[in-house]
């Protein structure tokens, strides 16, 4: 049992570490995908350390969980199209979300690099 637990831990940590090198665009796409799946704890890691430090963690989890529920109510996320640019340590994306019921949602997201890692910026 202990070895299974360790193996699972290895896989989880590996995935988390592998995600560390994601581009700004990938971070944005992963954020929406993870919220859609209800993986709120993982999604929150895409937000900049400043945002996470200044917001009550429970509050952030709760409001994103509510968004996840609303996304499922719309049939879940079907496609994500993120278009934009990264220049130096900052970037901006226009994101188009398409849901299972055919509805669309458009958002603008800023990204910034902190210590070599891309985050969604405030």
């Amino acid at each position: 049992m202990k070895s299974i637990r360790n193996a699972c831990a290895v896989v989880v940590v590996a995935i988390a570490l592998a995600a560390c090198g994601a581009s700004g665009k990938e971070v944005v796409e992963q954020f929406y995908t993870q919220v859609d799946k209800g993986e709120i704890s993982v999604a929150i890691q895409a937000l900049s350390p400043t945002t996470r430090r200044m917001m009550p963690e429970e509050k952030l989890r709760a409001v994103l969980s509510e968004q996840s529920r609303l996304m499922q109510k719309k049939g879940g996320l079907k496609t994500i199209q993120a278009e934009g640019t990264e220049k130096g340590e900052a970037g901006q994306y226009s994101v188009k979300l398409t849901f299972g019921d055919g509805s669309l949602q458009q958002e603008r997201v800023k990204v910034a690099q902190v210590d070599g890692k891309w985050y969604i910026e405030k």
Partner: protein
Amino acid sequence: MTVSDPGSRVARVVGAVVLAALVAAGARPPARPSINAALLRPGDLLFRTGDSAHSAAVVAAEGGGWSHVGIVVRSASGGLELIHASPAEAPGEFEGVRRESLEAFARHAYAIGAYRPQSETAAAFAAARAEHYLGRRFDAQLDADSDTELYCTELVAEAFRGSGLSLDPGRTHYSVPLLGRVSVISPNALAAMPALSRVL
């Protein structure tokens, strides 16, 4: 669901697996912080940093940051416990303002800090007032100005309202994808208020 091409990550994954195996072989969870109740009194604010691995990493990299807060109150047995507004942290737990032992609060913490209001009278007022909010639902919406549902820092601000000591540092504004512009009372802005001094 389709997303744009994420590119190859084979080398990164292999490296990560090797590193993770080393971590799994030798890593130990961080020790839970203990709370010295003898240093506390009703009305003190108890802050914590979450116990997720990521929170721990943020603390290590950036020197900390509080993610949650509760108010110390007197328990029925004469000891100390805490009232805080939180989603359920265990199956069957109430999602909202509830009492909890100091030990249970620390169980979800990577780091703990206690701050004392400069007015003992206001602190006693707030400790009593916090009981009034027991049973309110957790505020999972973005309506920060309503007290029908509360989140952690909002509970503190409300409990001290009318005490003669304001512990409302105002709202911090953030833009978060899917949420738009979010206005919340930041635990760190609260802890930084000059009306509080750290005791633990």
